[in-house]
């Protein structure tokens, strides 16, 4: 019968099972929350690079938690020890859970050995944001760059991650690229592991 079942109430969050989590969250709720986050930080800082740093730190905290949760839920307790492994984990699994689809592309940088790029036609977080001309190169994708940084650093692959607009011919809006530059020790370890 409808309504006779009672949802079990747990006294403490540690007793609640982890479960699969909500598959969908309201986009407008997220957009409002994110816009408030950006606006609040705008009042706290003096310049653009500080604002980007703050957004990145917010994303870092998310990344650290997403890494642990997803490895437990989707990967059956197996850690990533190789560079390509962790990159494809970010590119598919993380993106799928956070944005509902895998990232558009994952490329290796041509100029430097330690650079990789994840590209997206338009980041979900930027969908309802327009940047005024006087803010120049500011990119709200710094939040997503922070998430990627959180995942990579906590998995043991320290990196510098930034978000950039890349103009594309034939399209009005520029593409977004997340640039990942790994630290020296990551490359050395990768070479050692063969």
């Amino acid at each position, binding site marked *: 019968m409808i309504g006779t079942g009672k949802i079990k109430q747990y006294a403490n969050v540690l007793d*609640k099972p982890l479960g699969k989590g909500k598959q969908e969250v309201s986009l407008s709720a997220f957009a409002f929350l994110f816009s408030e986050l950006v606006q609040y930080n705008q009042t706290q800082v003096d310049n653009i690079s500080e604002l980007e740093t703050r957004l990145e730190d917010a994303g870092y905290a998310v990344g*650290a938690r997403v*890494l*642990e949760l997803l490895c437990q839920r989707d990967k059956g307790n197996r*850690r*990533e020890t190789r560079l390509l*492994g962790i990159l494809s984990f970010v590119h598919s699994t993380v993106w799928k859970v956070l944005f509902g689809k895998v990232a558009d592309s994952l490329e290796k940088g041509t100029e430097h050995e330690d650079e990789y790029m994840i590209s997206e036609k338009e980041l979900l977080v930027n969908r309802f944001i327009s940047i005024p001309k006087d803010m120049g190169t500011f990119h709200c994708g710094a939040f997503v760059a922070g998430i990627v940084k959180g995942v990579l650093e*906590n998995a043991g692959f320290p990196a510098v991650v930034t978000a950039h607009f890349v103009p594309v011919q034939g399209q009005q809006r520029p593409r977004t690229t997340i640039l990942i530059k790994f630290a020296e020790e990551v490359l050395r370890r990768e070479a050692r592991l063969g």
Partner: protein
Amino acid sequence: MQREDAAQLHQFVLHAALDIVQDLAWTTSAMFLKAIDRFNDLVVSVYVTAGHTRFMLLHDSRNEDGIKSFFQEVHELYIKILLNPLYLPGSRITSSHFDTKVRALARKYL
């Protein structure tokens, strides 16, 4: 005097094993690393999570399956603590409920 020494010895053995974990963690993609170090009759078993948080257990050698299940349950509890946005990863866990649950798990599996 004996008990005090024992506690310090245990802590020393555990910390000394940290270096071994560091290297071993990169050789395998499994999380449970089994017994990685011995000292007299004490054995150190280690479980490394995706975020490279290490759970280390100092015990006298027996019951490996029980230890693996223990680690897996503690891992789930740890993730629930970590999901708290106000918890700083790497800081000390102060929840008494967490403490109670871990002790109950220890009684159950070890």
